[in-house]
């Protein structure tokens, strides 16, 4: 799923945690913090909500570690938990009435934009994503940004491959429409 391991394997760290070495879990958190964080930030459009969902996912992952059947694929397993946490957090945010919050900090650590136009482009991208229905945004991000295969996406989301393909197609079409509108303005 595009997640590579360096140093001690996930399986070894999971084994240590299961043996009572809680500190080994810190290595897993550090390893997956940014990778999973990118999905959460783009999915929720808000850093505060994204970090909350990410924290919850890590804690739930720890509590459910006994149910991680394939420790070699800990990252993929944790991804599934995060996808669910983002759904819950996103639904809660929607109930609060938060539609989209501009999040400049989301690009911390990214190369600085070379011009004002680049900053505007980032803003356009975020607003376009925010206009997608959550289920379309989820499918689009998992497929194109996280680079997952449809079979993997089906495992994470509990949806069928056909439904996911349809959602990705619709998301792409809607984004093209939204971005063309922006260009015309």
């Amino acid at each position, binding site marked *: 799923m595009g997640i590579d391991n360096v140093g001690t394997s996930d399986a070894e760290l999971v084994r240590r945690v299961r043996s*009572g070495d809680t500190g080994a879990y810190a290595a897993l*958190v550090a390893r997956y913090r940014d990778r999973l964080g990118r999905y959460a930030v783009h999915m929720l459009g808000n850093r505060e909500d*994204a970090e909350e969902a990410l924290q919850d996912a890590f*804690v739930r992952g720890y509590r459910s*570690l006994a149910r991680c059947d394939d420790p070699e694929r800990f990252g993929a397993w944790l991804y599934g938990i995060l996808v669910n946490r983002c759904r819950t957090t996103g639904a809660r945010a929607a109930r609060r009435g938060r539609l989209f919050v501009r999040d400049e900090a*989301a690009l911390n650590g990214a190369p600085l934009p070379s011009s004002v136009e680049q900053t505007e482009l980032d803003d356009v*991208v975020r607003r376009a*994503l925010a206009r997608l229905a959550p289920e379309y945004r989820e499918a689009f991000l998992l497929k194109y940004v996280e680079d997952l295969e449809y079979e993997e996406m089906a495992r994470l989301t509990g949806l069928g491959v056909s439904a996911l393909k349809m959602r990705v197609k619709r998301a792409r079409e809607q*984004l093209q429409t939204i971005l063309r509108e922006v260009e015309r303005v």
Partner: protein
Amino acid sequence: MFEGGRDVVDQIVARLRRPVRIDPSLDARVMERIAALATPRRASSLAAAWRWLTEPRHVALSPLGGLAVAAGLVALALLFPTLARRPSPTIRDLQFVLVAPQATTVSLIGDFNDWDAARTPMRLARGSGAEWTAVVPLSPGRYRYAFLVNGSLWLADPAAPAALDNDYGDGSSVVTVAGS
């Protein structure tokens, strides 16, 4: 804003794929929450069993569940006396016999049936014409007894030792049932 000749969606995908840096202090917050979790991850099964047995807990019971529990307790209460009455291996069946050619009814009376003539009627043995019998289960002990013939004639057992401590003033016999 977008590069010409290149799909706009592909262009935004490229931007979305750039790394996003999450505040590293999140790690500490996660580990703090994990440390606060009460349940240790590797408790021994023995310790877990002991904790399960000794920890106080609240039991929620619906009205229907309460009725089911009550019905179970009643069933146990009814079953227990039945079980208690079942003969133990030390109880012995004793056959009492009286030869009385002129009798029309004979009852066995004694300590074991509170001298109640109605409780142990004797039966005329088939083919004998005069031999009345009754079988009584008795636990080890000493019992006094007699026969009541035709509802009024009190007779001690001519084949058994006489009881000297007869509360009723009439003759009675004694039988001793030995333990196993």
